């Protein structure tokens, strides 16, 4: 029965992806993509990767959708309608064949995976005790492969700097305009009621992330979504990007991470290794700081380049 379910899910995913790629309607493609993200979240749950399912549902189904919808609305304002609708793709046969070949080759690779599958799960579980954590994925992210996570934070910040630097010169350091011209009444209600739940869920995610599926990325994404909702409804304006406090928050997570990393050189075995006795409190502390900085970075990435000149 579960195999039937998986087949149905996979068929749904592929059909939806095809629809997204070939449909003419730009907004329909984005909505299809949001639905695709939701379905993919279920798919990850079927692959027994609940941590990934949480991330995919939050980012694929939530933030990316909002990013694309915003971009679509913006482009619709910038571009004359006649420049927008330009016939269908002219050549599709050769690309279709080429893409099909790539997919087939990749499929052959998938079928040719070695039969007793290699796995690092035994090592991960064996080393779990030294970290005091219960969730092996969190342990990989913040202990064994902490350097990856650290670099990823830096990539996020770099992407944000890249996005900001695409603003007009006059608007550098200003804030993004998120508030639509007309705010429907229910949106304001939603923005008042939903964020408390979102913050609660985010705190819960960080809290259980040490031992059960969940963690900083998921919590940060939820917080970012809630912050965006509040700014969208006009309850709070988007913060000016030159604000010191904002920048300190964004840089705080990675900075603390690096600091703890160098502390590891002094008191433990090397860069980013934690003294065993306080490994868990350290990791939870890093997680809390990282959550805030991820939330801020993701929300500002969605908000896009500033387009209002700074006040001062």
């Amino acid at each position, binding site marked *: 029965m*579960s*195999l039937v379910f*998986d087949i149905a899910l996979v068929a749904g995913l592929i059909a939806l*992806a*095809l629809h*997204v*790629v070939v449909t003419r309607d730009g907004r329909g493609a984005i909505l299809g993509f949001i639905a695709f993200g939701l379905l*993919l979240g279920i*798919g990850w749950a*079927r*692959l*027994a*990767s609940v*941590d*990934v399912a949480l*991330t*995919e549902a939050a*980012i*694929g189904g939530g933030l990316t959708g909002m990013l*694309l919808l915003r971009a679509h609305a*913006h*482009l619709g304002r*910038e571009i004359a309608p006649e*420049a927008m609708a*330009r016939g269908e*793709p002219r050549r599709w046969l050769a*690309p*279709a064949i*080429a893409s099909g070949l790539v*997919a087939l080759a*990749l*499929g052959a690779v*998938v*079928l040719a*995976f070695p039969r007793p*599958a*290699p796995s*690092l*799960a*035994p090592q*991960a*579980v064996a080393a779990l005790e030294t970290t005091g954590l219960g969730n*092996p994925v969190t*342990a*990989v*992210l913040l202990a064994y*492969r902490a350097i*990856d996570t650290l670099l*990823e934070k830096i*990539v996020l910040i770099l*992407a*944000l700097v*890249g*996005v900001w630097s*695409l603003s007009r010169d006059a608007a550098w350091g200003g804030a993004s305009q998120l508030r639509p011209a007309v705010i429907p009444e229910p949106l304001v209600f939603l923005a008042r009621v939903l964020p408390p739940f979102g913050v609660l869920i985010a705190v819960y995610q960080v809290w259980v992330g040490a031992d059960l599926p969940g*963690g900083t*990325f998921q919590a940060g994404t939820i917080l970012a979504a809630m912050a965006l909702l509040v700014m969208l409804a006009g309850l709070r304006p988007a913060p000016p990007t030159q604000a010191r406090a904002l920048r300190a928050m964004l840089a705080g997570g990675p900075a603390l991470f690096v600091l703890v990393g160098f502390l590891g050189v002094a008191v433990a075995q090397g860069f980013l290794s934690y003294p065993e006795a306080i490994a868990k409190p350290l990791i939870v502390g890093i997680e809390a700081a990282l959550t805030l900085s991820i939330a801020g970075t993701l929300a500002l*990435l969605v908000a*896009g*380049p500033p387009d209002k000149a700074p006040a001062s």
Partner: protein
Amino acid sequence: MSALALTSASLFGLCGAALVGIGLFGIVTNPDLLRRIIGFNILGAGIFLVFGAVARRGAAMGLGGDPVPQAMVITGIVVAFAATALAVALLRRLASLTGSATFDAATPAPPPRSDA
């Protein structure tokens, strides 16, 4: 690790392969750059799914899957989102400068982003 779980992992791996093909097709054929960015995301989702199949096959020690690929996929999803946001910002700038969301037919169209 039962045969059923192995089959299901391969199934999702094949789905990932198909998604890579579909995303690639979308990137190559759509003149609209926003649609290309969506195609890029579908391609990425496919690659992550192939990786998910690897993780699922590595189930051992009572875990549902190998935690190392899972953690890498989580990192990957977040980085792909950052890349998407940067691409969207570039596109918005392009649109306000040229009034068009496509590369002109006269100039050979390079992909919006070939790595990341």
